[in-house]
């Protein structure tokens, strides 16, 4: 007699006796609540009328379900064109531009560093990563403050002050500079991904072509490029997904020229049509998911590229001959321009009394160290609040930023590590595939939309409203994909036998994790903590609409000053953020060996 109930019970017990399965089930529930549920809430919110909107749609009462908002948004009227379709096109254009520049710049640098004997590889490589560590708007602000002139904006920037030349408006404000500066910000990301492939690519593939008398140019176009193409496409899509949700950059470089994007539209709707901000947020999410779909469709075709990882023991560098110095000099000029120069400009702009003049006589330390209680200064300088290093509110914001980032890093890092572990251990099971997709989803949901989703979520779970817990949850889930990615990569390199050897000696699971698995891949796992930390420190769009005024973090503070027209304060805070992030990144890198490139998936 077979007892089916007993059999089922045994099977269940067996299933849950494996820690990897428990982790998968827990994260299936957790990630469903934290990613799917907020999105559902957003959908509902986009169909729910608010008090403010009842004036526009008198037929409805506050809280009624309605579709008229969506119809107004998508209807095609002049209003809908100006508020939705034009921004939609702009968003696509600038994201495409950004992907193009990121892959172009990152790819070229990756090629020279990984494949040629160019000089100063170490320093170029280190400096090139800077723009990714710095907040995304850093380059944008730098671009604006460097190239701006009084024909198109309030004052002359350093470029005009130095050379007396005035660039046209399209060069400073609009789609081109937004795409370019975002592209520069994401170029290191492309550099790390493409560089990883180039480094791992079997050098024999190129040598085989060399032997068959293939000209250098043909090797690059017919062998190297096609082989890195999937990685290239993958990078394009990831940068596209990140760029489309950029908020601060369009604010800095778009608003002055009335160049609106989906993200600035959300900001506009926030005060006038609250339900529509969710609608536009959903459009951003749909775009993100479309990108995931395209990415999945493009990979896993017949021409499998899995053979890319061969033995790469004998990488032969292309000899640039005399060019190795010349190209290195050009490379250095570019990296200095995008990584060191912005810092100098920020510093300069934070020490100017009158931000239109760079004369040394005009320099001041007031915005850094000034006494906040000096009555004379308060009355003489517009909106003077004291030097940022002496402002209590700034220190509080720095404290908030650090607390938030450390919490997010700990949670995201640990959850990512566990998920990565369980997904690799149970790879090929349907459960593992679902959990790994769910864990990657937040990456594709634009920050701004994700923030909105949590705002909607908090409106239902009111205990979360305006709490630090909400911000921590938001940041942790949004940045978990980074940690999952690096943990998955690290786990894949670790053969199961290593853990199995410990299982056979009766070592409990937690001990295997702490004593065996973690120590072996320490630096990769720690990178999974580092990346969420850095991303959180420099994050603005994710938190900008969710954060309460009494819980300002450094980035929102910076935005506050910039909106008030106080560039010295804005620049000083930006400088402070960049220095804190660079300092922490460098110390962790030196102390533990964890690094951004390992987190992103490079080597």
């Amino acid at each position, binding site marked *: 007699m077979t007892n089916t109930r007993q059999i089922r019970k045994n099977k269940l017990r067996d299933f849950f006796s494996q820690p990897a399965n428990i982790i998968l089930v827990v994260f299936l529930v957790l990630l469903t609540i934290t990613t799917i549920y907020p999105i559902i809430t957003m959908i509902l919110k986009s169909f729910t009328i608010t008090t403010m909107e009842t004036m526009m749609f008198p037929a409805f009462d506050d809280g009624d379900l309605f579709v008229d908002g969506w119809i107004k948004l998508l209807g095609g009227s002049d209003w809908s064109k100006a508020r939705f379709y034009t921004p939609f096109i702009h968003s696509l254009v600038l994201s495409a531009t950004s992907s193009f520049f990121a892959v172009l710049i990152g790819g070229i640098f990756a090629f020279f560093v990984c494949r040629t004997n160019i000089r100063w590889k170490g320093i170029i490589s280190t400096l090139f990563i800077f723009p990714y560590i710095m907040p995304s708007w850093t380059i944008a602000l730098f671009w604006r403050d460097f190239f701006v002139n009084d024909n198109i904006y309030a004052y002359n920037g350093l470029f005009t002050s130095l050379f007396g030349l005035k660039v046209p408006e399209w060069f400073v404000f609009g789609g081109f500079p937004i795409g370019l500066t975002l592209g520069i910000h994401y170029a290191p990301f492309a550099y790390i991904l493409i560089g990883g492939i180039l480094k791992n690519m079997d050098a024999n593939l190129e040598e*085989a072509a*060399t*032997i*068959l008398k*293939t000209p250098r140019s043909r090797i690059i176009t017919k062998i190297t490029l096609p082989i890195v193409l999937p990685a290239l496409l993958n990078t394009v899509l990831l940068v596209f997904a990140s760029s489309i949700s950029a908020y601060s950059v369009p604010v800095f470089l778009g608003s002055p020229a009335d160049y609106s994007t989906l993200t600035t539209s959300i900001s506009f709707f926030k005060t006038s049509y609250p339900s529509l901000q969710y609608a536009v947020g959903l459009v951003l999410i749909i775009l993100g998911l479309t990108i995931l779909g395209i990415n999945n469709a493009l990979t896993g075709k017949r*021409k*499998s590229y899995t*053979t890319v990882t061969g033995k790469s023991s004998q990488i032969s560098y292309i000899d640039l001959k005399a060019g190795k110095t010349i190209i290195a000099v050009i490379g250095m000029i570019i990296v200095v321009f995008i990584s060191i120069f912005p810092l100098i400009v920020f510093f300069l702009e934070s020490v100017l009394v009158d931000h239109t003049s760079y004369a040394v006589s005009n320099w001041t330390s007031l915005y850094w160290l000034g006494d906040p209680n000096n009555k004379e200064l308060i009355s003489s300088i517009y909106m003077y609040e004291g030097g940022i290093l002496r402002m209590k509110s700034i220190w509080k914001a720095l404290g908030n930023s650090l607390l938030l980032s450390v919490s997010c890093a700990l949670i995201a890092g640990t959850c990512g590590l566990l998920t990565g572990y369980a997904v690799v251990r149970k790879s090929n099971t349907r459960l593992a595939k679902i959990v790994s997709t769910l864990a990657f989803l937040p990456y594709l949901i634009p920050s701004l939309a994700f923030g909105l989703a949590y705002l909607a979520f908090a409106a239902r779970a009111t205990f979360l409203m305006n709490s630090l817990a909400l911000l921590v949850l938001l940041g942790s889930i949004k940045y978990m994909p980074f940690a999952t990615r690096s943990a998955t990569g690290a786990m894949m390199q670790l053969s199961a036998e290593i853990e199995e050897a410990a299982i056979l000696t009766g070592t409990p699971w937690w001990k295997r994790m702490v004593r065996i698995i973690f120590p072996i891949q320490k630096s990769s796992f720690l990178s999974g903590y580092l990346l969420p930390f850095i991303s959180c420190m420099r994050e603005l769009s994710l938190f900008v609409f969710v954060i309460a005024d009494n819980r300002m973090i450094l980035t929102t503070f910076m935005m506050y000053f910039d909106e008030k027209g106080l560039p010295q304060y804005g620049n000083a805070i930006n400088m402070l953020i960049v220095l804190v992030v660079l300092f922490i990144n460098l110390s962790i890198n030196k102390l533990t060996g964890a690094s951004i490139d390992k987190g992103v998936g490079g080597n």
Partner: protein
Amino acid sequence: MSRIVLENITKRWGDFVGVDNLNMVIDDRAFVSLLGPSGCGKTTTLRMIAGLETPTSGRITIDGEVVFDSEQGINIPPSKRDVGFLFQNYALWPHMTVYQNIAFGLENLKWSKEEIRTRVDELLALLKIEEFEHRYPSELSGGQQQRVAIARTLAPRPKILFMDEPLSNLDAKLRMEMRVELKRLHLTTDSTFVYVTHDQLEAMTLSSKVAIMEKGILKQYADPLEMYNKPSCIFVGDFIGNPTMNFLDAQYKDGTVSFTGLKAKYITEDGHQINCEKGDSKDVVLGIRPEYIQIRDEGANKGTIFSTLPSGMETTVKININDTIITSVVFGSVDYPVDKEVSFDFTGNSIILFDKENGDNIAIGRLEF
């Protein structure tokens, strides 16, 4: 004429010497194997001749043309050396079909479409891979990939073909088949083959000449049978042959050797003198191939069976003589019970005396009890 001459070739990476002052001549249409344990510099040597690696110093001449000379600063790129190279991992381009992989090199030579078609068809037939023409490498098995790689290498009819352990990724049966085909290919293509392997059997069976290397130094360069019968040193004697040669510590004094409690007269093959003063004793190592230890009832020496490894065609027998284990081979399907006492003789004229100090071959001869 595709004669390759290496003169004083050295390759250094910092303090590490990969290849040390290598001198070698590879004759036209030869099948030369570079043999040695991993890390001995054989692949580096191959890559240097092909031009994929730059030697630190020395000179390489192919077909009378100097392709590398460190003193004159000559370094002809691999594409101009008219060579083919078969990689260990095949290095097939994953984004191209079998046809495209094979045709690629011919396109570089600006062959016409029809010529390429004809040549590729010829190779597909030669290597029996016609039906895979439109497949991608990832859709082929290891053996099929291997054939495609060979076809791609042969397509432009290179005068010299370099092969870097091309069979090491195949299973034992396929490896045997491919050996036969490679040897036939060598005859049909009329090219010079330079082959890298760590498998002594492969080197022995395929090559017209074997170069054996250890730690970057060329130990012996000879035809396989000469190398088998007259190894230049203990390392070569040990590396070549399976089961391996017996090495027995011995004392040489006034024309006699004493080892493991036995004593015998040592008569050199050509009567040449061993450099050892009369009355002096010298530490030597006796090198005896297993087939020169013959088990027979009337044998002069006695020992007990330690262990046997019958394979059907032959049986490897381990014999214990006074607590030293020696290896013998008996042909035919025979087996012996363990601990049985057997008689045996040391036969043949190819018993070698090595200098214990430096491992060099000092004499070849026979033992007389």
